[in-house]
């Protein structure tokens, strides 16, 4: 038994311990990330209307802005004012839309909507606080210039532009 214990301690003592320090580096810096929370979808409640309203089987697009530094960025979201791809449309298409804050990660952001500014279809928010902001856009397209003409059959695509501009 004694010999066994001595042998054991020798084994333990003789074993080399291999170790190495590996550095993991990174930096924390101001950043703005624009995410697609919900991609939108047009519903077709009648022949002359395309809308993202949920009551008409559409889906409102939602963008998420993550910022890590206060007062570093403006968030700008624009609802569509033209189709990027569609069948040939000889008549006029009228566009209506809204942009509004849907959700926030801190109560300090509750004043963003009231303090936002608009320029045409674009609404700008000054991201005065770090955190996450969800912005929802709605879009309605009507064909025929008030005469309710039916949209030709085919695929329609319009773009919501979400921008994060450094202040």
């Amino acid at each position, binding site marked *: 038994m004694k010999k066994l214990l001595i042998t054991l301690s020798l084994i333990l003592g003789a074993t080399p311990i291999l170790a190495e320090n590996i550095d993991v580096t990174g930096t*924390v*810096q*101001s*950043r*703005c*990330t*624009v*995410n*697609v*929370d919900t*991609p*939108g*979808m*047009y519903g*077709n409640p009648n022949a002359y209307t*395309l809308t*993202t309203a949920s009551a008409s089987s559409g*889906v409102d*697009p939602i*963008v*998420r802005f*993550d*910022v*890590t*530094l206060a007062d*570093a*960025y403006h968030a700008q979201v624009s609802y*569509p004012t033209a189709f*990027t*791809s569609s069948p040939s449309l000889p008549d006029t298409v009228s566009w209506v839309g809204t942009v509004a804050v849907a959700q926030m*990660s*801190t109560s300090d952001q509750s004043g963003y909507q009231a303090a936002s500014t608009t320029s045409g279809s674009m609404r700008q928010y000054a991201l005065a*606080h*770090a*955190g*996450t902001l969800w912005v929802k*856009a709605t*879009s309605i397209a009507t064909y025929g210039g008030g005469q309710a003409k039916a949209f030709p059959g085919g*695929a*329609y*695509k*319009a*773009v*919501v*532009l*979400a*921008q*994060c*501009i*450094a*202040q």
Partner: protein
Amino acid sequence: MYRSVALCLLLCSSVLGHEMTPTYPEWQVSYSGGIKKTTMRLWNSREDVQYYEIGVFDDEWKPIPFVTSYKIMKVDYLSQVKFDVYIRETNIKDARYICSLSKLRSDNVSKTLLATRICSKFKAAWEL
């Protein structure tokens, strides 16, 4: 605390995002006289986007001539790209924003597409 909150949100939810840093890049000396460069990092977590277009603009959003390896660069899903942007020294005082814009593809479903653009800013001398 907010950074950890933001990070957790990124990890905890389905992420379809786009990010470009640094927020305030600076011009550096390049290999050639009369040319300055800056290095940007672009991260893509949008599965539906593989290409981003780079642009340099002045205060009034007019384009400024510049050179990168690719003006429309391919950035795979969940990967990042570092790229250098070169401009003439004479344009530096006008260059205000450097932006990356997602390039979207079409398919057969009627939907709204979400284009994302992130712009970093070159601070003017009076802002430094």
